[in-house]
Each structure stands twice: as structure tokens, then as C-alpha cells.
């Protein structure tokens, strides 16, 4: 593909909100997230020949973004031993003004997941990629992705203390749609 489609720019711009949300959730640092998205767009633009036309552009961009993120992380880990420890609470950096208490708790719990768990949960649970697509994006086996998603859910559930048959959070805070629906 040597000639750019005129709408390619529009397609790329259209995925920026998703790329930013993914990057933000993954690294918990809005400034770094935007740098990641920028690097992703530059790499994508200069490697368009590597993109098979007709295949999933969004999945391709997500692959570039997460590869960039993890290679940077590896580099940093070599430099700073405890890079991991600082990741935990960064989700709470995000804007909170209209957020309900239970969402704040959720973000905190999410922030304590491992990066491996975060990325697959975001891809499958938030972005709606299939397990197969998520496996391709993360260069992992489908079984590994399923196992990571499940572990992530189990860990979140443990942290949040959800119970079956109890559609509100344990501290009695607003639980939105779920609760409204469960009202008989």
C-alpha cells in the first residue's frame, strides 16, 4: 500500500479516544499515555506497509501501542528496580468529578492488577475484542488470555467484595443500573 487512503487520517484520528483510554488504563499516567498514543500513531504511519489492508486497523494499532508500552517498561525496569510498585494507585489520577464511589473503588482495585491482567481485561472486557483477537494483540495463547481475564476478574471481585445475589457494592454506595434493574 504505497498510496495513502484519504480517509486514513480520519480512521486513525477516530481510534485516538480508544487508544488514549487503553493507554491511560494501562499506565495510569495521562501524560505518559498521550506520549504512548503519539508514538503509536507515528509508528503506524511509518509502517503502513506492514498493515494488511482489510484487516483490523484498530487491533493493529492496539498491538503497536502495547508493544511500545511493554518495551518501554522493560527498559525502565532495567534502570529502576521497583518500577512496578508505583503502578498500583495511578488509576486514581484520572478525573473523578462525576464518578460514583463504587467506581473509585473499582479503579483502585483495577490499578492493583498486574499489567498482563490489565491489558487482556481491557481488550476483552472494555474494548470488546474477542479472546482470539486479544491473543493476537498480546502475542499470547488464547488459553493464556482466557486464564488472565479470569484471574483479573477473580482478583477484582475479591478486592471489591461482590457477592452473588447482591447487586450493590458492600459499602452501600450507589451501584447504578444493576441495582435499578434488580428492583422488582
Amino acid at each position, binding site marked *: 500500500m504505497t498510496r495513502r487512503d484519504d480517509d486514513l487520517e480520519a480512521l486513525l484520528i477516530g481510534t485516538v479516544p480508544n487508544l*488514549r483510554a487503553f493507554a491511560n488504563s494501562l499506565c495510569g499516567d495521562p501524560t505518559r499515555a498521550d506520549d504512548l498514543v503519539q508514538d503509536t500513531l507515528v509508528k503506524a504511519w511509518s509502517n503502513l506497509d506492514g498493515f494488511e489492508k482489510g484487516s483490523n486497523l484498530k487491533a493493529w494499532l492496539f498491538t503497536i501501542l502495547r508493544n511500545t508500552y511493554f518495551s518501554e517498561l522493560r527498559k525502565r525496569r532495567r534502570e529502576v528496580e521497583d518500577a512496578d510498585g508505583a503502578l498500583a494507585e495511578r488509576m486514581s489520577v484520572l*478525573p473523578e468529578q462525576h464518578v460514583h464511589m463504587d467506581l473509585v473503588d473499582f479503579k483502585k482495585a483495577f490499578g*492493583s492488577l498486574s499489567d498482563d491482567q490489565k491489558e487482556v481485561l481491557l481488550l476483552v472486557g472494555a474494548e470488546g475484542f474477542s479472546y482470539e483477537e486479544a491473543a493476537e494483540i498480546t502475542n499470547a495463547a488464547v488459553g493464556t488470555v482466557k486464564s488472565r481475564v*479470569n484471574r483479573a*476478574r477473580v482478583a*477484582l471481585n475479591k478486592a471489591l467484595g461482590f457477592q452473588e445475589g447482591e447487586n450493590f457494592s458492600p459499602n452501600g454506595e450507589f451501584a447504578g443500573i*444493576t441495582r435499578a434493574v434488580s428492583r422488582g
Partner: protein
Amino acid sequence: MGTSSDPKRGDSATMQAPLPVELQGQIGQRLREAYIELINEPVPDRFVALLQKLKQREDEQGGGRS
């Protein structure tokens, strides 16, 4: 509730029992709420400017790659 055993330790082959569907749903709902909030953030101008710059640079180079 309580402190979990370290969730960061690897993904061994042992598959944990899947979470009941109802609980999966509650977690999924929170996740999507948090995520949609992020998606709805306005896109900073820098990204539009960046793509314009990339395109412009390419046009100047007659379609060549840098």
C-alpha cells in the same frame, strides 16, 4: 474482602474456577463505566496536528518514506 494472595504472580497453567456470570457482569459493568469515561474525554489538538504533520511531510517528499 480481605487481602488477596498476590494476584501479580504469573499465569500458571492451572485454570482457576471461572467467576460466576453474575459477578462477571458486575465487574464488566464497572469496567465499561470507567472506560467509557476515558473514551469520552476530548481528544487533544496535538493528535490532529500530528497526523496533519505526518501527512504533510509525506506529501512534500512525494509519497516517499522518511
